[in-house]
């Protein structure tokens, strides 16, 4: 049978079929979990960008409950930002931002206080920048700079300036040695924050 011309084709077909079945089965069995993980990543980023204390070893379930308790989805008065509430009072906004990084798309969340101007934090939940260089944007030292900065009232709302520049209240320093990541991050971050500020002042 092995010498028949159809044998290799039939063999390949059967083998491919069997292996694929197993993979499709496993992939659909874990699909929900994968999606839940991605959602949880995002929820964590939203909470981290706002002045909300998260316990150190929080479980996924507790984290999700905290998110549901504090955060409401974007409405027509928040211009695409998620709304942070304590009771009925609006305490802040979490604006999802994303754009092209050096290697891949960077996804993050910017937290803004209820005055719609003061930044309460920034958190990146998906990025593939160079470890040790561009990836430093996701690290504490870079992110810490954002806390307490304000969106400028006119012109460009927020900017990332090259290392060594004199900064005003709406600017932070770029990451040393990561020019590409910093430039690209600045491009979409300043654009999206400016757009949000304009949209919010129009409401």
């Amino acid at each position, binding site marked *: 049978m092995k010498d028949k011309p159809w044998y290799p084709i039939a063999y390949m077909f059967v083998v491919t079929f069997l292996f694929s079945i197993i993979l499709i089965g496993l992939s659909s069995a874990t699909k929900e979990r*994968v999606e839940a*993980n991605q959602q949880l990543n995002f929820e964590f980023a939203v909470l981290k960008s706002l002045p909300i204390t998260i316990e150190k070893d929080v479980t996924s379930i507790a984290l999700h409950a905290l998110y549901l308790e504090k955060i409401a989805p974007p409405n027509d008065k928040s211009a695409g930002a998620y709304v942070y509430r304590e009771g009925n009072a609006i305490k802040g906004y979490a604006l999802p931002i994303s754009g092209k990084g050096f290697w891949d798309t960077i996804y993050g969340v910017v937290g803004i206080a209820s005055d719609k101007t003061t930044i309460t934090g920034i958190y990146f939940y998906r990025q593939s920048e160079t*470890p040790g260089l561009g990836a430093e944007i996701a690290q504490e030292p870079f992110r810490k700079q954002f806390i307490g900065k304000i969106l400028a009232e006119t012109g460009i709302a927020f900017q990332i300036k090259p290392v060594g520049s004199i900064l005003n209240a709406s600017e932070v320093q770029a990451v040393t*040695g990561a020019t590409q990541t910093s430039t690209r991050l600045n491009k979409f971050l300043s654009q999206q924050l400016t757009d949000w500020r304009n949209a919010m002042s129009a409401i």
Partner: protein
Amino acid sequence: MAVATTKNESQEIILQGIWKDNPIFRQVLGICSTLAVTNLVLNTIVMCTALTFTTTLSSLTISLMRNSTPRRIRMMVQTLVIAFYVILVDIFLKAYWPEMSTSLGPYVGLIITNCIIMGRCEAYAGKYPAIPSAIDGFFMGVGYSCILLIISIIRELIGMGSILGIPMPFFSSHWDKWIIMVMPPGAFFTLALVIWMFRTFQKDEEDDKK
């Protein structure tokens, strides 16, 4: 050829995988992933585990299938089997360790093209029984892992002053971090030095063969 593997045979296979025929410094296979993932020790450990898992099981599977696989399409079958195990790893990481999955990014999928796995399937598993093939696959993976760990420890320590993300004394405080070590060029330098070093140790054995 006997089906049962004697203790000596296994020892020989193990020794070959780790030292005599080490995939990195003897066969110089799988260099692409060596260069890509060795900037952090943790990434390297996961990559090595994934690779060892894949080489072991694909060698085993290919060996079990070797008598029914037509010679002409054996490479297609090998690629398919390897891809199958790699996708298993990928699904597992995505579902149960999402942070690692994002940090390794496309490199998990690229295990499929890692020459070590296919190299072992072609050179060993296609000709020998299942158990020795699995042992061969496993220890080739171990041999690969040892070298990668050495490289990644050097790179993370000199480049970022830490090991496994834990700041090391002296290196995190007094050491001027060599950023280039965590970038791709750092991998080339370190890999070349490591290969040079190990080949120097092995020189005598090579001369004996001639």
